[in-house]
């Protein structure tokens, strides 16, 4: 073939199937993924519009004491006559606020530590990985109890404690991704052009390393919600913020007389954890299949 072969017609480019669209399709295509995504999305909507959705003030005394579910009080009332339905709705807000902020914190710390550790290697890797291991062995729940015992209950300190202790898994995953990505030739090409290390990591490596990390994040957040609820249940939650754990805590003394008190907050926790887990799994599947 001679030089005339150069510049032959090319087959048309298939219309750029948007990357995001195909991920979404990947999640929704499996029944469990669809279920998880719907559940999580519903919870987010409920959390955002909680004041509009809740018929009563969650802390206000709006009716008869320990009234079973009825038309006026969908999920019944508690020992002080507060509406459980409104409590569960507002509890979604607290749980998701905590999960969301912790998630952001985990993603920030985890991907920073993972990226630096994986890309820099050598002593930085050693130091950061030992640090990660040190954090990984901290008993999260116990630490949260200790902090609350010292500084008193509060959403802010809970976020800080959980955020600072939940990142090691994510950091290790990001590090592993970075280790394999930095050997790839497109990274070498960027280096050969003289791109700085920060640029290589931020522009070339991290965008490729994050998808699996985000899938893992869903699973981490499910744990965070559980821990928050557990703390509330043993009475260490923020008394000024309505939460599922708090509701379950107030239900403790009436387990045998008012079944609706523990059931509905418990159900909410179950659905949130289930939704995040399924979404995490589906994300892993959808992102993993396209490598």
């Amino acid at each position, binding site marked *: 073939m*001679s030089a005339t*072969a*150069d510049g032959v017609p*090319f087959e048309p480019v298939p219309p*750029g199937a948007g*990357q995001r669209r195909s991920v979404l399709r990947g999640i929704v295509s499996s029944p469990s993924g669809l279920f998880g995504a719907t559940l999580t999305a519903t919870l987010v909507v409920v959390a955002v519009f909680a004041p509009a959705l809740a018929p009563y003030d969650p802390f206000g005394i709006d009716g008869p004491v320990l009234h079973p579910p009825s038309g006026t009080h969908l999920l019944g009332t508690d020992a002080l006559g507060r509406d459980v339905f409104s409590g569960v709705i507002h509890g979604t807000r607290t749980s998701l606020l905590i999960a969301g902020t912790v998630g952001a914190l985990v993603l920030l710390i985890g991907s920073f530590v993972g990226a630096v550790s994986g890309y820099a290697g050598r002593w930085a890797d050693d130091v950061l990985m030992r640090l990660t291991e040190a954090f990984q062995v901290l008993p999260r729940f116990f630490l949260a109890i200790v902090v609350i015992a010292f500084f008193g209950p509060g959403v802010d300190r809970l976020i800080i404690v959980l955020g600072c202790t939940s990142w090691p898994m994510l950091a290790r995953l990001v590090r592993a991704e970075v280790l394999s990505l930095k050997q790839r*030739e497109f990274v070498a090409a960027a280096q*050969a052009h003289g791109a700085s290390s920060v640029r290589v990591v931020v522009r070339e490596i991290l965008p490729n390393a994050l998808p699996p990390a985000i899938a893992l994040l869903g699973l981490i957040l499910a744990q965070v919600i559980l821990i928050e609820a557990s703390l509330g249940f043993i009475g260490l939650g923020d008394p000024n913020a309505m939460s599922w754990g708090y509701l379950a805590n107030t239900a403790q003394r009436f387990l045998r007389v008012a079944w609706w008190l523990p059931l509905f907050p418990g159900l909410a926790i179950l659905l949130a954890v289930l939704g995040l887990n399924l979404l995490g799994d589906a994300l892993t599947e959808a992102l993993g299949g396209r490598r």
Partner: protein
Amino acid sequence: MTTAPALRVEDLRVTAGHDRGARDVVRGVSFDIATGEALGLVGESGSGKSMTIRSIIGLLPPAVTMTGVVRLGDLDVTGLTEAAMRRVRGDRIGVVFQDPRSHINPLRTVGDFLVEQLVTVRRVHPGDAMRRAEALLLDVGISDASRRLRQRPYELSGGLLQRVMIASVLLAEPDVVLADEPTTALDTTIQEEVMAILDEERRKRDLAMLFVSHDLDLAGAVCDHIAVMKDGVIVERLPASAMRTSAREPYTTTLMNARPHWHTEATVTATDAGQHSPAAPSSPPDEALLDVHDLRKVYRVRKAAARGHDDLVAVDSASFSLPEGGSLAIVGESGSGKTTLARMLVGLTSPTSGEIRLDGRPVSMGRLSTRQRRQRGRALQMVFQDPYSSLDRRQTVGSCLSEVLRLHTSLSSEQRRRRVAELVEQVGLPSRHAEARPRSLSGGERQRVAIARALAAEPRALVLDEAVSALDVSIQAQVLALLERLRRDLGVALLFISHDLPVVRRLCDDVVVMHRGLVVECGLVLDVLAAPRCAYTQRLIDSVPRDGWRPRRRGRDGLSTATDLTRSS
């Protein structure tokens, strides 16, 4: 016995996907292979040759369906149950796959792998099976067979593993052997060894063989007939001996002519003569764009069992020079240090010792700072072998090029966009490809994008590391034409690293031959290929498949080029 052919395939059709997304991969393929006969199935990627093989052994991926008839002698295997098919696979058909390393369990010894089928299916006594395996390893040219049986796959080179694979097939005494690109991943000298063994053993045992390959010359050398496949159909069937003279189909001729024709005589044609400068490659350094002197890279590898380090010499004293606008080939097999050399030149790896001069000025040899790397990048740019891993799949072509422009220039975003369009067109792609992501591009198009990315820095030389090896032959020809045009129009020098002598002969003026990290020969391509002074160069030249070529076993010398632990990267 009847005279039924050993393998008969009738109207094979393979469809991938369901309903709307369904695609016909094989569209009505039929052929017969008689006992003792070899058929070469030749085609480019996507032609359906691998799917044909997988349909015959009944191992199609999920969501792929087939119709048609596959007969082994008198047995119709298409209607068999999975259990019966397993029996056929072990007993009557053997398959040699392309990549032996991924087809042999890395945790088990070579011996275990070889005897498994005999012991579990045929109920042969393990001791007997092992003795037979050992005898066969000797047959396929593995001399210290008893030691090899106890080793694990990672301790063997690719060439040795492929022999083990062949032995494992022969051990089951099948009637039919299917070979799916068995030597594509191997160096040409090793390829010759392995093909010689396969060819010899097949003839000795009177086996029918279906040999699938993209290499027309190689298939012609070991087969009786050639079937050329394109888009799921066999377009032409030829006797291998008269392949070149009897081809009628345009596609067959295209395929034949896509590869640079190989002739070692120093027939300097008019165009050749015009291109070559009279200066020897070792011209005075002051004229040279790039001058490399005694470059050396030693890796320290931790010893396996004992304390301390071993030195692994990747590049041992390489010296050559590349004239401004010239074209120099660095030739050698995998493990000869070519890639390490390329990485040292563009500053991705720091040399242990030696000197690199750009325009006669020595460049810094240690770990480069960002600024130094950028400076080096404006002189030398690298194009990598695999266009699939050398492009970020998340970035569009435009944003990838734009990113590079941002590093090297201070153009405004509008100017950058225009320059991107220019670059895309310069490498022969329509400008709308700037919006495309690598995923929607073919291998050849991706490699063009990779070249455009290198050109974005306006370098004075491109370092091409096996840049066309992964491409189909017709695409390869197009990319080579592109490189020639870029050299002519932009005056960019080419440092072409390759193991492929015919391609080197077509593209380059000068050549440096490397063997185990050492430069063993250098000079004008035409001189070196016509009259090599070094035995190793001769050996390389002899192993190139061409008209009338037959693979030959070259004994220990051929073997020793692949020491067991220096595997291909």
